[in-house]
């Protein structure tokens, strides 16, 4: 099983979610985050005082999928999330040791 972590632009969420559902991803965790990559920060002014905006709002997705579809999921995710401009985000893939469905007690691939 693989844990796929992705940071994407917030307005892309719906598009990405649809693409993932089509591929067969059955569960997803979504959180609002702020972050930066190689994008430079920019300066704003509030009541005459300058400040640098370093962190940009992003959406973080986390999902655990079966090994055999992991690569397709990454491709589909990236394709849906891409705009071609700076700040499109990143995708990471990690190994997962165990999964468990709380309600039934199923483990392994059956829990996904």
């Amino acid at each position, binding site marked *: 099983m693989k844990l796929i972590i992705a940071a994407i632009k917030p307005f892309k969420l719906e598009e990405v979610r649809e693409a993932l559902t089509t591929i067969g991803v059955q569960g997803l965790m979504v959180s609002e985050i702020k972050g930066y990559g190689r994008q430079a920060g920019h300066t*704003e*002014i*509030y*009541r*005459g*005082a*300058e*400040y640098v905006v370093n962190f940009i709002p992003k959406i973080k997705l986390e999902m655990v999928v079966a090994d055999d579809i992991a690569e397709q999921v990454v491709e589909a995710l990236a394709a849906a999330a891409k705009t071609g401009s700076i700040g499109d985000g990143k995708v990471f893939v990690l190994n997962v040791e165990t999964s468990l469905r709380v309600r039934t007690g199923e483990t392994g691939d059956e829990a996904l």
Partner: protein
Amino acid sequence: MNKFSKKMNKFSKIITTGVLASAMAAPALAQEAASQEAAVHTQFIFNSLLFLIGGFLVFWMAAGFTMLEAGLVRSKNVTMQLTKNMALFSLAGIIYYLVGYNLMYPLGNWMIGADETGGYIGAIGVAALEVVGAGADALDDLSYASTGSDFFFQLMFAAATASIVSGALAERIKLWPFLVFVAILTGLIYPIQASWKWGGGFLDSQLGFLDFAGSTVVHSVGGWAALAGALVLGARTGRYGKDGRVVPFHGSNLPLATLGTFILWMGWFGFNGGSQLAMGTLGDVTDISRIFANTNTAAMGGALAALVLTQLLYKKPDLTMILNGALAGLVAITAEPLTPTLGQATLIGAMGGIIVVFAVPMLDKLKIDDVVGAIPVHLFAGIWGTMAVLFTNPEATLKGQLLSIVIVGVFVFVISYVVWMILKATMGIRVSQEAEINGLDMTELGMEAYPDFTNR
């Protein structure tokens, strides 16, 4: 006697008198006397009505201040700001009833001074209204207005003055010492200096000082008290860096701040309009009409000036400065909302807006941390408005205006500063740094304003 039968009694009295007079073909004198009495009564009624309506409009400014401040502080401090505003307004009203009203309006019974040579300290006593169902003979002053309406109206002004202070000192002051200061402000500081002008005291009788609705008497007083407090209290943690950096602390709710500004704008029609103190003649009503129109256009001038200036200076307009600009325009016109033309009023307001846009960063440079811009809006624009009277009212004198600004300023600032220092030494006025960082809502009140959202 209930209100309805009271109306019927008066109505039937007038009708009866009229009928009798015409039936007997009495000399014109009897009719004359009856209609004269009706005219006096009508004037009294309209004057009182002005105070009642003006009074609840000024009351509504409390909601304005509260929303403006709630919107400009950070989420973790919003509940404290709301609590401070509810508490200070309520406390101010009660203290004003107990002490302030008679100090401010001794009606000639000065403890120190006299009407003719200059009044200095007014009377001590609890405020007392007229009896229930008062007839013409039971009224305190048939030529003026009901005492209750006058008291109600003036109470709101005192409470408004106290509201000004709470914005500047937000996010790091302790609740109870702040309320002690409010009690002293509304019980002593405000009424004493107000008596010097509106109570017939020496600024009025000896210096010919003109301040129609209180650019000095209310707004600069609040501003001076806020400035003294800000100096004694110190800036919020993390606001100013060693290298001269100024760190912005963003407001948590700009819609609320904007709503608050519009509410204050609306209340100001009562604030300035009610200060005509009479609505019983053609002249009065046309005056009040001018006052409403001028008050309004001054706010617009201030807002637009701030909009344009922030666009030019910062390449982007700053909403919070536009809000401050509108309020500064209102403060500026408050000293003389009657005599200017609409054009003059707009320019007077615009100057207020300009002052604010420069004053806010200037205070930051001096490391005076004013969370909502209360000092630029109320103190600086208040001084400007008081001086601007010279441009539109020929009865104003340079000496009268300037000297009064200085006298009131020194009086209020020095006493406020001393009181803040005493409070600092005895009760302590500032929360601990940990409380300040975690937010006053949780540490002082145990209650969040936006419990489902993340606190910054």
